[in-house]
């Protein structure tokens, strides 16, 4: 089942819009998971452009990255844009860490390292039912590679040759305690996955068109992983050098500057 391809300009526009929505959501609270949205905006733009709603699935393994998923869903018509204004508030289903009540979630994550098992399980379900057209995508953060369950799932998917499973790793080198590479050495990432029986590729994670190309259905007998090298500051020049990648504080002034910068960029995209 083919669908029209998305041009690079549209992917860039979508990524910019994801950043803008994320800034809006975080600014309302003065702090939040903005760095994750900034590092993964192109990944979400590509994923939501490739994934066929109602057929394919997108699992967001780091549950706090759901801000990017909500933004992407709103920008692709899967979620009412108005709903984003309730992000993180009491009694809102637009949870800051995606939950069972949150819309559009294929599987509740949040406790890190669980999403790949879910995606492998969905892919296995399709195989058991002989539904060979469906694909399952899973976004994983590089910090999650410290969790043992990721490698249990990677070994399982490799063994079962779950070739309709695609993992996108947001390698932003950021975790709560600091840069991932100062906490544990997770490199070489791609080689690790290859040795587990996966087809691995590595890209500039802010090149949405490159990710989009790699997400296209491929003739392969193996599960596929795309290691996206990213930055938690990408696409928002006004962020000060001191901004913490995991949990960014947004003063009203910074919020105003960020909104202005992204709206101007979005205007450029729409020209």
């Amino acid at each position, binding site marked *: 089942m083919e669908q029209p391809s998305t041009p690079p300009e549209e992917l860039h526009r979508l990524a910019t819009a994801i950043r803008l929505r994320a800034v809006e959501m975080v600014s309302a609270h003065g702090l939040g998971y903005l760095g994750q949205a900034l590092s993964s905006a192109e990944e979400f733009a590509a994923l939501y452009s490739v994934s066929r709603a109602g057929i394919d699935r997108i699992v967001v393994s780091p549950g706090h990255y759901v801000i990017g998923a909500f933004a992407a869903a709103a920008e692709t018509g899967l979620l009412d844009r108005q709903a984003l204004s309730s992000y993180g508030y009491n009694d809102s289903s637009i949870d800051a860490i995606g*939950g*069972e009540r949150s819309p559009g979630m*294929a*599987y*509740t*994550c*949040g*406790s890190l*390292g*669980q999403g*790949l*098992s*879910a*995606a*492998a*399980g*969905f892919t*296995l*379900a*399709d195989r*058991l*039912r002989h539904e060979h057209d469906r694909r399952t995508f899973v976004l994983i953060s590089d910090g999650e590679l410290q969790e*043992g*369950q990721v490698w*249990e*799932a990677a*070994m*399982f998917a490799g063994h079962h040759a779950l070739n309709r499973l695609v993992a996108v790793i947001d390698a932003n080198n950021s975790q709560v305690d600091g840069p991932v590479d100062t906490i544990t050495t997770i490199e070489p990432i791609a080689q690790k996955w290859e040795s587990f029986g996966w087809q691995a590729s590595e890209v500039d994670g802010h090149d949405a068109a490159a990710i989009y190309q790699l997400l296209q259905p491929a003739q392969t007998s193996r599960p596929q992983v795309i290691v996206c090298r990213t930055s938690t500051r990408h696409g928002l020049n006004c962020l000060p050098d001191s901004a913490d990648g995991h949990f960014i504080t947004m003063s009203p002034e910074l919020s105003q500057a960020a909104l202005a910068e992204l709206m101007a960029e979005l205007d450029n995209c729409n020209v």
Partner: protein
Amino acid sequence: MYEPPYRTVLKPYGRALLALAREHENIICLSGDLTKQCEVDLFRDALPARFVHAGMAEANMIGIAAALAREGFLPFVHTFGVFATRRPLDQIINAVAYAALPVRIVGFMPGLSSPGGPSHQAIDDVALMRSIPNMTVIDVADATQAGQVAEATLDVPGPVYIRLKRGEIPVIMPPEHRLDVNHADVLTEGSDVAIFASGMMLPVALAAEQVLHAHGVESSVVNVAVIKPLDVATVLATAASARAVLTVENHSIIGGLGSAVAEVLAESGLGRPLQRVGIRDTFGEAALVANHLFRKYGLGVADVVQAAWRCLGRDEPVPLVPVIEVTEGEYAPV
């Protein structure tokens, strides 16, 4: 009920699950490298397309099962009780229970029935599973119940933890017995002691009831197979009709059946002396045979009789418990 020594059978659960799976195509069987030990070699050999080797990776196994359940399958996950509950606790809570998914987690070798030492002795699995919202917890008493538990829980919408003895399984209940997930089973009635027992401790409680009866003490023995949700009405009615209450479980006295009954009694304001027979907040140890551990850690018939005596405040010496002789293939409590 049959009388001890009980005859034993092999793989009553495994045979029943296979039969049920033939009728219900959405049943998937997962195993964590303990396939024969969990009786599902029968399933693996008969329905290989619906059998999944998860290997020694319990966290992933639970995650796979959760995704299968979301897709409309009914996954049965098999390993020993320790590995089924301790290792993937976070996955069970977040991926399965929070989503109220119909995953069946089947943990074999309960409590001190394993002579393998603390690493293999599930003395806390009921407590762990009971504390999780949406979870149903069942401690299966005998082969008849083991043969029925998969079907009896078929319509339970959320997750179920099923605790099963491994190996030779005693037949205590006749074939016409029906495991009822909504009701505890009052097996004997007496106005002195109410004995609530689950799983492998049911035959212990029944043997104790006979010893007590011979010494003028009448007991109600209630088989509480379903520890959660607890049949509160039966627990309260039975406790109210007795002067003292005993709980008997092959599990820590913290968090399991004893705690569940104590909570209900306390909250209802029903004051009865209560003794919890179980593993007294200690780890077990390795041994050659499990019977030794049952005696050493207070899980024998004499321990139940003694607890009843204590509860009732009797002055006479505690009655002696006759040894039930068994031949090969038979089972009796120690």
